[in-house]
């Protein structure tokens, strides 16, 4: 069975939800600790949502230096699937595994809502089970979710098809080009502000649209071996 790790940083909040989503998808969920320098042999890693270190400085700025991140970076560079959700996305940007940065929402308040998204790319380790152009609805909750990057970076992301999700309907946080999620060049590292782990259980989530994201990585891992 594929093993997917979820890192708990001090201040991680949605780590349990991410572990649950992994189990729902049918993989073995492995809790990983920020202070460890081992990934315990997992096949993929999720950096979950939350407020690591309170996010007082900049979201993800301190977590990026956690000992476990060296291994995550090494793994990501070697092609291991890595998904950063919300705070995890911020950490991936701070760690320069993904370009750009996430800044304070333009509305300047925390926003929690059921957000419509357009899938822009199914060519990543985390979105093969989705179709480009498909509309999904995923829980969004953040205070600093506005994606920014310089014009060149933005053009490159768009040109290379590395925008993975875009906000549909209204843009909740002022993200440039309505960007909700992006991938690295290789497509193994994806960062997204919305929380697919909250959309795997009909009882507690507004839709089940998060499931294909976790199913995608299992598919990716099984075809790779």
């Amino acid at each position, binding site marked *: 069975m594929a093993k997917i790790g979820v890192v708990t940083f*001090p*201040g991680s*909040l949605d780590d349990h939800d991410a572990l649950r989503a992994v189990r729902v998808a049918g993989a073995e969920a492995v809790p990983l600790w920020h202070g460890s320098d081992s990934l315990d042999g997992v096949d993929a890693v999720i950096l979950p949502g939350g407020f690591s270190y309170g996010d007082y400085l900049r979201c993800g700025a301190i977590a990026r230096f956690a000992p476990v991140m060296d291994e995550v970076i090494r793994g990501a560079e070697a092609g291991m699937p890595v998904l950063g959700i919300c705070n995890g996305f911020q950490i991936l940007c701070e760690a320069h595994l993904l370009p750009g940065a996430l800044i304070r929402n333009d509305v300047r*308040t925390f926003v929690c809502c059921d957000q419509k998204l357009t899938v822009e790319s199914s060519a990543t380790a985390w979105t093969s089970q989705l179709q480009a152009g498909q509309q999904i609805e995923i829980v969004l909750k953040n*205070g600093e979710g506005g994606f920014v990057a310089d014009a060149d970076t933005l053009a490159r992301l768009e040109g290379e098809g590395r925008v993975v999700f875009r906000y549909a309907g209204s843009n909740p946080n002022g993200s440039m080009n309505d960007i909700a999620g992006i991938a690295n060049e290789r497509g193994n590292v994806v960062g997204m502000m919305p929380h697919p*782990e909250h959309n795997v259980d009909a009882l507690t989530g507004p839709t089940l649209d998060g499931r294909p994201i976790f199913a995608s990585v299992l598919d990716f891992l099984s075809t790779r071996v």
Partner: protein
Amino acid sequence: MVDTVQNAARTPDHAQPWSELGLTADEYDRIRVILGRRPTGAELAMYSVMWSEHCSYKSSKVHLRRFGEVPTTTPNGSELLAGIGENAGVVDIGQGYAVTFKVESHNHPSYVEPHQGAATGVGGIVRDILAMGARPIGVMDPLRFGPLHEPDTARVLPGIVSGVGSYGNCLGLPNIGGEVVFDRTYLGNPLVNALCVGVLRHEDLHVAKATGAGNQVIMYGAATGGDGIGGASILASETFDATKPSKRPAVQVGDPFMEKLLIECTLELFAARLVTGIQDFGAAGISCATSELAAAGDGGMHVELDRVPLRDPSLSPEEILMSESQERMMAVVEPGDVDAFMAICRKWDVLATVVGEVTEDDRLIIDWHGETVVDVDPKTVAHEGPVYERPYARPRWQDEVQSNGSGSLERPQTGDELAETLLQLVASPNLCDKSWITDQFDRYVRGNSVLAQPEDAGMLRIDEETGLGVALSTDCNGRFALLDPYAGAQLALAEAYRNVACSGAEPVAITDCLNFGSPEDPAIMWQFTQAIAGLVDGCQTLGTPVTGGNVSFYNQTGTTPILPTPVVGVMGVIEDVTRRTPVGFAVEGDAVYLLGE
């Protein structure tokens, strides 16, 4: 120079600022009688905060006793595992699980500094729940503001909402409901009530008790700073100078990240069975934690106050005793467990320090650099404060208020007028959609929120295997309570009870937060007694025990009190959360019934 016990005995005539600290002449005299000498500055600090209305319930105690008439057995036949008097009540919900929940006020601090006041209000109630041995799993926030268009509401509301939101969001506690009500009487005195609910296994129940001579007393969490000790700086300065503003801030700043670590650390300490007694730090800080722990136990306590880690090294012993710095806890630990305790604290980056130990005798002794500055019977500090039977009387204006019915109001005559009225109603801040506020709260975190905004009651799944869950609702209509405080309190109870019942859960227990004006006004005191009578009778009829609550007096602007606001929180149990009933029409073709008259 510190004012030691010896010094106090030698200088009986030393003038002390008891009045500035809010004590009456009678209360100060009583302290002298209890001690057989004048109190030291540190003792005066302790007594004054612990005997304050907020901590001692001196005006409400005689009436709260009436809650004793309410059965302590829930409708499903189980006895409360902890009731009124503990940090929070604990209810058996079956399958070995118990739930603890409580609502508390943080009204005044939230007016002074809205964001931090509301944030630390959430932080405080969460620590109460944690101290029972429970994992906090959700919060709610009944709020009251002045009219929406008032400039001061524009100052207060965004800060309070962001404070509630940022603290709860950062702790990872889903916000599953609350209230937002606007009324002119709250303009200079908004209400911030915060409810937290937690879950534990029966065997994990913890109490605030220092037992076992030789056991170590450990303070852990944040270092102590000068927060919220306005009054104590009077004691610190040799001479009291009323013209000089206090350098000590009366506001506390919250650090939700620290609290998140404190929660995870504490739960791990519980799981490792390293804690024999525990208390959170709320109002009255170390004064409260040490005196309550010692008073509840079978021995005394010896504390070396100079061991307390400080954020501000200039603090005096009086100030340290009164500091309301947030995100701190006090645990009683067997000597052999101290190393293991410290190791878990280190894992979570939580500062922990042994500050004292449990002793054989029944004194609370506090030393400062080797000299004794406090030597008291802790019960006299924690439980034997003054009790007042304040006069109360139905005010003369009550008849007038009641007779001023809606009959004299103009009625819309035409369809257009009716449409106009309807538009006015749906646009009124009290009735309109609240998502502009609730969207700032995370309702999804932890993945167990079965019902949240905009539902009538919030519902949380407790156990994924069996689907066991709890539902909660808080309600109060202060206008009803003004018209008739007895019936108004019952209506609050009935509404919260109905909301929980409608969600599919069986209501089993209540908590309350009684927000009123000055108890020194007989009319207010009458409202208060009526509201309690209403709740007591209501709970007896419904068979729901009262697990605890909070009284907040002096909510007024000048002589204008707020509407009497007895907020009631009802908790219900549902065996299988998949059988919940959300609001709204679900399936086309379903029949619609009207129940009741």
